[in-house]
């Protein structure tokens, strides 16, 4: 028998007649389960293409587009609250608690210090304020950001307007509670008149 001919018969563990550096090969059939794996994976792959491009599958881009459209419809413009309304809200304990609960996850402590008594950002627990003593300004700090977004605005911390109000209520109460030892007020910057509400 010449050296290239496959041995005949499909029976198990028939060696082919040829050796390479002593290595021989069996002429075994492809394992059945392996063949099934091949067929099934090909079928799934074909199904996959049809599913996403011709049948009911939704590609992620279409999904996001739909979601964004739905969201745009849902957006309720938050009512513009007056300073007085905001001050009223700031006495509501549930508001304050809600605001406090949000602080740890919103990076405030990284900049204002673990007790909010000032680090990179100013002390939030003293009676002084850079932007004037009004709830409106606190809400503005939190919505638009300050110093070109070093103090992050809504674009970065992604709180809803309602959440911002809660956080503002909490911050206002910190000041009310009076001064905690912390960073000195930034004399050059902070307004002299202490908190009034």
């Amino acid at each position, binding site marked *: *028998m*010449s*050296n*290239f*001919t*496959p041995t*005949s018969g*499909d029976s198990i*563990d028939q*060696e082919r*007649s*040829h*050796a*390479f*550096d*002593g*290595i*021989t*090969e*069996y*002429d*075994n*059939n*492809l*394992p059945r389960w*392996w063949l099934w*794996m*091949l067929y099934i*994976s*090909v079928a*799934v*792959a*074909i199904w*996959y*293409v049809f599913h*996403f*491009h011709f049948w009911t599958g939704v*590609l*992620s*881009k279409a*999904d*996001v587009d739909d*979601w*964004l459209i739905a969201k745009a419809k849902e957006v309720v413009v938050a009512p513009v609250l007056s300073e007085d309304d905001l001050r009223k809200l700031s006495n509501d304990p549930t508001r304050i608690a809600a605001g406090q609960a949000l602080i740890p*996850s*919103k*990076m405030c*402590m*990284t*900049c204002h210090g673990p007790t909010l008594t000032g680090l*990179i950002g100013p002390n939030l627990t003293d009676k002084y304020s850079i932007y004037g003593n009004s709830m409106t300004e606190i809400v503005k700090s939190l919505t638009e950001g300050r*110093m*070109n*977004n*070093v103090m992050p605005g809504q*674009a*970065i*911390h*992604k709180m*809803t307007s309602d959440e911002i109000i809660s956080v503002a209520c909490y911050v206002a109460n910190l000041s009310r509670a009076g001064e905690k030892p912390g960073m000195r007020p930034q004399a050059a910057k902070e307004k002299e008149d202490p908190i009034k509400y």
Partner: protein
Amino acid sequence: MSEPTSPAANLETVVYDNRWASNFVIATLVWGIIGMSLGVTIALQLAFPAANLDTPWLTYGRLRPLHTNAVIFAFAGNAIFAGIYFSLQRLLKTRMFSDKLSAFHFWGWQAVIVAGVLTIPFGFTSGKEYAELEWPIDILLAAVWLAFGLNMFGTIFRRRERHLYVAIWFYIATWLGIFMLHVGNSAVYPVTLFKSYPVYSGIQDALVQWWYGHNAVAFFLTTPFLGIMYYFIPKAAERPVYSYRLSIVHYWSLIFIYIWAGPHHLLHTALPEWAQTLGVAFSIMLIAPSWGGMINGLLTLRGAWDKVRESAVLKFLVAAVTFYGMATFEGCVMALREVNALSHNTDWTIGHVHNGALGWVALLSFGMIYWMVPKMYKTKLWSEGLANLHFWLATIGVATYAIAMWIAGVTGGAMQLAFDENSRLVYTDWMQIVNAIMPFYWVRFSGGCLFLAGMLLCAFNIWRTMANAAKLEDDVVLVPALMRESRAVSVEIDKALREEGLGKKTNALHDLVERWPTALVGLSVVVLAIGGICELVPTIIQGAMTPRIASVKPYTPLELTGRDIYIREGCSVCHTQMIRTLRAEVERYGVYSRAGEFIYDRPFLWGSKRTGPDLAREGVNRPSASWHYLHLEKPRSVSQGSIMPNYPWLATNDMDLSSLSRKLQVLASFPMNTPYSDSEIRGAVDIAKAQAKKIAAELRQDAHFKDMKDLENKEMLAIIAYLQRLGTDLGKSEKAEAAK
């Protein structure tokens, strides 16, 4: 089984060259230690950033590419050549074609790697993953690869064995595949000796890169090692290969299907959706060909399992093949769109790649080395016990690594995607995610240390083995000369073809191909090229026709300078610039990235790992120059616990604007055609300085920067300009539309 020899056959003397195979083994061990030490170093830096000693060339962004290059091209590369140089001669019963070419191949390859070591940490990088080497080194690499090819095909030409054994098919595919990928992906336009821009941009560059990146895994980390497996497992176990037919089917299906799967690295991105779908579909089909290799390896050991208990070599080989099976299965799962939404850009991918690189490639190489070195040196392994210890250290090391990264990846991915009941992000602060996975960074570090310890034992063991042996000598053997073809061949095959059964028909046909290397090469080229052509050509055309977004303009000279600093520092190994089409990403970063936004990006910087957050819309999300200044100088000053490296030198280095005009000129020339006007090109430096002045003025409004002299000449301003620009162009078009 004895060689069938006809009485007329003359016996000839062949001298197998052991010297270069042995040199490649030594290089494998040396580079293995270096590459894995680098890996352990950067693993430590992620858990403990101060470990970079605030030294530019030791920072994560620069060392990580060096690590990947050292492990892939230096460690695995040398292991491949060691295995090929050893087995090819014996399988073909002839010496390597030319000792001079072997020497050139060996020293040329080491030169490429040394050149990488001398450039990558110093910021000379193309910025493309696994292809970081700059163009002069790319050319050297191509030359060395050609020399290797000449040596291999020359050996095949001079063979005394009519048939090419399956291992050699895989070696051939390796050579062809890597040549094609390297040339295809390295199409760049040089600016200076160490800076170039790719001719492709944006989505084209992304697809070419991942066609390359994915198939480098296929043809550098899979096919050569399958070839090595097919030689060393049957040799070490002294058992016949389980199924010749399986070899045939899985060889052709593997090289055909692999090429198509590249786009699974770009799911949910701005890449056209049809290309993404093809990538997934072919990834699903890839499981059977991959497992074909695994079962052919494992089933070859039937009847030899008792030997596995005793022999460290077989333990390594078995574990390697098992890891191969697991990693390929994992890969198919990760390629599914839904899974990928979670796994992509996370540590899961890092774990996956190490399952392959450590579990499959490294373990197989160790088994091979422990087997072939004593053979070449005609001695016994210095210590079998140490090899066994190495096996356990390595296996436990990879397992620890893989599990840690799997948990870290799933945790990080899930946290990035998590929505609360109001469909808003649960974890808005990136540091929450970093902190959650931090413990696993330490676990991963310990897994890496175990693996490295094993690597050191291996080097020591082999060194002792070599030192104890008498001199390394070539093997001299007597083999029958190759007989002239007789016509009987075709008659036999003719008969075989007419036999019953598909199996036998294919066998017979394949017999023809095996004895005719030109056909094997030619067919392989065709099979290899189809996938690439079908995906790349339409994408390049589609890319060229990417709908222009009117407001997307080329980078200003200063931004371009900043972008090149971003590339130099390797920021893209930790930061992606691609907001995927997923709800959570749109919520976190802003509107998803459009193909049209990247047309001036050379190279594309989409990245593949989010150790930090995505930066595609950084200019929108964080416009503040002062924040970036403080953050880049010392991230932990504004972001507590951050693991980003400090970049204090950006604040002290002066910008290098010397080649700026040339850069613009290159980008404006054919075929890149970036619309820079002549006056912009000539006045690039002045334009850059004017923009830097503006940013400096913005910074000086802040007390911290007020008295800083010379602010406008620092690199910091260029990179801030770049960051402030990122992702802002699209908004301009929205505003323009609103205005209309």
